[in-house]
């Protein structure tokens, strides 16, 4: 089986779809000749032609705007926003337009677009290269929001996203591009080589959107995580010797609430992890739903472990990041409650 890191898996998904379907176009800032600042589109222009993988002006609103128009004209555009921190100029086109076009036209027009963008911290990117804005999109009806945590899922979910007839925001945890990250920046960096989720089939396959993945089975506590935090969760649970049911949500909207419910009803305890700012983060929605559905099974308050309610600072990056210590404290609180 080919070994790929997450960037390679993403590139491969694009390559597979571009090869299969001439309606798939890929564009964004620096994605053409150069292949993207994270190299996710490297080589695609060479392989598929200048007109299928190209640079755009620095205009996130324009990028999503043309994607919508192309999609309405039958194409399947995949747009890259260089960092999720720069998606806000496109917020109107995403929330008011892509997400609502099908609804307001009652299905007369649709916008099957995929928007890829890197999220999360861990690269000393400071306030403007580290954000995790998923909750700003899960609030928007008509949009789907997904976030893979490994190469295998990244490829399979990106193919699913491109084939989906709804607009999809595809978030890529940049700290995981080269390897799993267990939360300790001082530990030697791991690569995806040798990791089972770094084994990525060549050719076409899909990972369905809307299904969580069980990372580990346990009876003591449920940990709900996605993106980078999946790996931090695994490490902390192992280190603490906690028998945790860890769910990698993968898809935030639609959400695999059935898997969550089953797990919490089994364990009676729940910890939710995300890197984003705490207040009104996606953890709030998860906590709200878990207590709505599993109230009588719960033996302790659901804990959220998150970034602080501040912008993502530069020098204090690791003080901001919800690392093993913060996760461990919450896990202990929940277990002891």
């Amino acid at each position, binding site marked *: 089986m080919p070994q790929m890191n997450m960037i390679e898996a993403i590139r491969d998904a694009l390559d597979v779809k571009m090869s299969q379907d001439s309606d798939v176009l890929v564009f964004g800032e620096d994605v053409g000749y150069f292949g993207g600042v994270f190299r996710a589109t490297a080589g695609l222009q060479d392989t598929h032609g200048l007109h299928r993988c190209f640079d755009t002006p620095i*205009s996130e609103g*324009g990028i999503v705007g043309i994607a919508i*128009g192309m999609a309405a004209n039958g194409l399947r555009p995949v747009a890259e926003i260089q960092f999720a921190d720069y998606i806000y100029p496109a917020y109107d086109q995403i929330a008011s*337009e892509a997400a609502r076009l099908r609804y*307001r*036209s009652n299905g*007369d027009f649709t916008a099957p677009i995929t928007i890829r963008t890197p999220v999360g911290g861990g690269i000393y990117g400071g306030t403007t290269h580290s954000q995790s804005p998923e909750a700003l999109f899960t609030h928007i*009806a008509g949009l789907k929001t997904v976030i893979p945590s490994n190469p295998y899922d990244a490829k399979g979910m990106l193919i699913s996203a491109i084939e989906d007839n709804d607009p999809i925001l595809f978030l890529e945890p940049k700290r995981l591009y080269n390897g799993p990250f267990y939360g300790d920046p001082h530990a030697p960096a791991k690569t995806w080589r040798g990791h089972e989720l770094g084994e990525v089939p060549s050719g076409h396959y899909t990972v369905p959107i809307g299904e969580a993945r069980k990372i580990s089975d346990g009876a003591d506590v449920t940990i709900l995580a996605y993106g980078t935090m999946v790996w931090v969760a695994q490490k902390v649970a192992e280190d603490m010797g906690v028998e945790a049911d860890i769910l990698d949500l993968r898809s935030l909207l*639609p959400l695999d609430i059935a898997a969550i419910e089953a797990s919490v009803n089994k364990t009676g305890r729940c910890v939710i992890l995300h890197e984003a700012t705490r207040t009104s983060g996606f953890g709030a929605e998860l906590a709200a739903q878990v207590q709505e559905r599993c109230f009588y099974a719960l033996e302790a308050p659901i804990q959220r472990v998150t970034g602080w309610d501040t912008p993502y600072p530069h020098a204090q990056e690791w003080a901001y990041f919800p690392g093993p210590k913060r996760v461990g404290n919450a896990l202990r609180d929940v277990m002891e409650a």
Partner: protein
Amino acid sequence: MTKKSGSNSSRLYVPEPPFRPGDTPDYSYISVPAAHSPSRPDPLCDADETRAHATSLIRVLRFNGETQGDWVPDISAEVLRGALRDIALTRAMDERMFTMQRQGKMSFYMKSTGEEAVSIGHALALNDTDMIFPTYRQQGILINRGASMKEMMCQCLSNSGDPLDGKSIPVLYSFKKHGFFSISGNLGTQLIQGVGWAMASAYKNSDEIASVFTGEGATAEGDFHYALNFASTYRAPCIINVVNNQWAISSFQGIAAGEGETFAARGTGYGLATLRVDGNDVLAVYAATKWAAERARRGGGATLIEHFTYRKSGHSTSDDPTKYRPESEPEVWPFGDPLERLKNHLILIGEWDETRHAALLEACKSEVRDAYKAAEAMGNLSGETKVNDYTMFEQVYERPLPHLDEQKRMFAKERE
């Protein structure tokens, strides 16, 4: 409160319209170009050759009904009578719907009175498969393309005949079958989408072009800039139309325009072809559109057209224009009325007369009346809309999702 405007000694400049309620509007300072209209360059000329067109005004129809100048199009009297009918029919429909809104039959309505020639002249010059990305004042294009007036009215009445199942407010039509993109309530957003649509058309080697619309007020949105910029970079086969009807709700065009430049001039800095046209002159609109469409279709890229016209009515049924402009302003606006001007021309060339005209207006009225009757039979907002409330859960996504199904069940419980 005593009026203190102007007494402010600050250096901050804030533009004001020439006339406000209470003033007697005098537009004699606007010289309506009579004999002269800029020349018609080759549609594949350098954009630069249209620089002067951005500040002058393409006119074909003189007020006396004569045609003149380089832009006189080759168009049959038959077709022109069709245009006259489209303008009259659009106006009659607007009139009726406005009145019905006042009677509570629908929540809202927006007229295009005074600027119908922009839609009709434009639509006449395009193919029906060219995709329009309209604002809420291009209903004339639907009329021209033969959309069902009853269906349009049902949309406004949000009733069981509404193709949008009541989801959208009145006039936010969507008619893919007529090459008419779903209208957004958010200003400006469709401009860059239309450019993307055109890029896709070029990518597919299709001959179809896109034509995108904005009011002059909404040119201030970022999307307008995106549209001009992307259209320029990728030479998208499209037409970008600014309908300058002088008003954006209560703001005169100077708020959006700034330092005395025309809206067409916005395009010159992007290297786009630019035309400025008398929007009350259906022949001029037709001719300019033909030119721009040919340019786009033959690979010459995008043209920005400013249609210079006037919004005769209020912004919408929610608006009272006498609050911010002189009541008589629409009457004294120096560019006349598009219906009258076309009528005069047809009469002058012996292809029309007052009797036929009166009959036409009568026919339009009764066509509208019949369509409205048929539409209202399917429900209205003051009575039973007859829209199935459960449709609100549909078309959020392609397929139902569990959380929406659950909410549908909650709703059912609520309706028990």
